[in-house]
Every structure is written in structure tokens, then in C-alpha cells.
């Protein structure tokens, strides 16, 4: 097993951790802005989530969500923030591929690519 410089490994991880935190804060701020917009528009509407309808297509697929948010549709705007949040762990895994490649740990580049492929499959299926 090749000697891995401990500090380099850890520094890269901490950087990824910070990046994730910014991603989460950005997503939260986005959802908050969308949420205020949503409440100004729908605050008095009676709601009922007792019966499951499933969301319409414009809140289920990446392209439709982005389009809805661009049109400043409140629910679409919030949904884009949620999509951003779901993307943070995916970004973490993608950065880990780079991290392991920098260490020339090809076994873990492979393992991490499998995880990344599974995540992309889930998001695009």
C-alpha cells in the first residue's frame, strides 16, 4: 500500500465539507426566498395533503423544474432549491473522484465512480 500523505487527504476533505455547507446554505436561502413568495401568493388557500395526488410533471423533472423557476413560479422556485440540495451529496461524490485520482488511488476512483453512477441513475431515471 503506498504511503498516503495524511494532511493532504484531510485538507481536501475539509475543503469538500465546506463546499457542501455552502451548497446547503445556498439551497436553504433559495428555498426561503421561494417560500416567502409562495406564502404571499397562497397564504389564505385551504390546504389538504391527506389525499395523495402526486406532483404534476412540472415539479418532477429537472428541465421542467428549471423552466418553472425561471418563470418565477413559486412552487417551481422552491423545487429548484430542493433539487440543488439533492445535488450537494452528488457533488461531494464527484469531488471525491478527483480527490482519489490526485492520490492515484485507482481502486477508490473506481469505487467512487460506481457510487456516482448509481446517484446519476437515480436522478435521471
Amino acid at each position, binding site marked *: 500500500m503506498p504511503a498516503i500523505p495524511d494532511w493532504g*487527504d*484531510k485538507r481536501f*476533505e*475539509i475543503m*469538500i*465539507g465546506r463546499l*457542501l*455547507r455552502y*451548497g*446547503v*446554505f445556498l*439551497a*436553504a436561502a433559495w*428555498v*426561503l426566498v*421561494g*417560500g416567502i413568495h*409562495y*406564502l404571499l401568493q397562497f*397564504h*389564505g*388557500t*385551504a*390546504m389538504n*395533503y*391527506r*389525499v*395523495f395526488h*402526486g*406532483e*404534476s410533471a412540472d*415539479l*418532477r423533472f429537472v428541465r421542467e423544474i428549471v423552466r418553472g423557476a425561471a418563470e418565477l413560479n413559486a*412552487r*417551481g422556485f*422552491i*423545487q429548484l432549491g*430542493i*433539487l440543488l*440540495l*439533492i445535488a*450537494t*451529496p*452528488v457533488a*461531494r*461524490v464527484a469531488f*471525491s473522484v478527483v480527490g482519489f485520482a490526485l492520490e492515484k488511488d485507482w*481502486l*477508490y476512483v473506481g*469505487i*467512487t465512480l*460506481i*457510487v456516482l453512477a*448509481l*446517484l446519476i*441513475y*437515480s*436522478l*435521471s*431515471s
Partner: protein
Amino acid sequence: MNTLEFTILVAVGSLLAGLLGSLTGLGGGVVIVPLLTLVFGVDIRYAIGASLVSVISTSSGSAAAYLKEGYSNIRIGMFLEVATTIGAITGAYLAASTPTRAIAIIFGVVLLYSAYSASRPPKTSSTDDPPDRYATLLKLDGDYPTAAGKEAYHVRHVPAGFSLMYLAGVISGLLGIGSGAVKVLAMDQIMRIPFKVSTTTSNFMIGVTAAASAGIYLHRGYIDPGIAMPVMLGVLGGALTGARILPGAKVRTLRMVFSLVIAALAVEMIFKGLKGSL
């Protein structure tokens, strides 16, 4: 109830859940689904979708703090994530064909286990078993900081731990929770990884596992922005507040109380599931 009232009440409930979850180390995710279904009468599928979103926010939001402490082992995490993500995708597909009554009952059982495992003090793992050849091959062994300097540890029973991690992934995907209790069981009790390393690595893995099923839930229309918004913001706010006051908090009593609350919610979930009134 109108939308404004619903949003505020759900946000406050989620804030409390996030705060208690962070202070006790149990995670706020486990109580979100019972809170939404039992208290607010939300359909369990919407509740699971919102819960998954909140799980990702706390896991990703706290990753930086955990990584800085130097306990989490990124190789163990990444290797086991292969099992948890496959499990999470399986669980998300299973959720579509499982009757909601059955999901409620399974949820109750997992909640009871979480409450039980939380009320039990962590056992110190023995480290005199022979080394595991898979652990050596996969470079899973590592070290962690203790008061007496760095201490090395060896990972055992890799195939058994990997299999249990798959199950943890299925539970996470089916119920929309982080299933941290099962992850810690696999790492701490079976793979004999030191408790502190297990819990922090588990937290690190939870976000990736949840993201794997969140994609499928999103496509299936289970994630409603009107519910996910107050839940995500509330849980995240609560968890961040909890992390700030943690050093001075009296956690033991709180852990006991929260475990009892979880157990009560579990019984209610099972009861409602059996009656079919959820």
C-alpha cells in the same frame, strides 16, 4: 387549516425535531414522518419525500464539522456507500409497490429499534480479532485522534457489514429516514469500528444514501414543495442551533425523553397502520 398556518406549524415542529435530533445524536429525520402523518394528517408518501430532503440537509450541512474533527473515514464511507445507494434505490422502488399501511408498520418497528438503541450506552468494541483480508485489500483500516494521541483500528467482518449496509439503504429508501441506527449497528457492532468513527462516518454517508432515493421520489411526484419547504428549513435551523449549544447541554436526560417520544410515536404508527387509518 390554511397554507400559512400549516407552513408555520410544520416549520416549528421541524425546528424542534431538528434541535432534539441534533442534541441527542438521533437525527431529526426519524420523527418528521410521524409528525407529519399523525399530527398534520399528511399522506405518508408526501411525508417520506419531505423527510428525505431534511435528512440530506442535515447530513451535508454538518459534514464540514465532522471532517475537521478527523474521525470520519472517507474510504469506509465510500466503500459502504456502494451498498447503501443500491439499497436506497431498491427501497425507493419497493415503496411504490408496498401498501402505505405496511410502510407505517415497518416505520414503527424501525422507530422502536432506534429508540431502543439510543437508550443503550455505546459498547466499547474489542479489537483482538484477526485482521480481515477484505479490509486490508480495501485499505479500510485507519486511525483516529484520542486524548492519548492517534490510535489505529482494524475493520472486521467486511462482507457481513456490507450486507447490513445494503439493508440500511433499503430502510432509508423505503421510509425516507437516514437509518443512522442501522448504519452504526453495522459499523460499530459488526465491523468493530470505534464508536466515534462509526457515528461520524455514518452521518457522512446518510446524505449520499438519501440522495439516491430522493431522485426516484422526485420523479414519482412524492416531493411537494409546500411540505418540503418548512420541513427542510425547520430541521436545518434546529440542527444548526443544536450543534451550537451542544457543548454545554445535559444530553442524557434529553436522550431518555426523546427516546420515549420516539417509542410512543412508533406504537402510534404501528397501531394506525394495523387499523389502516393512516
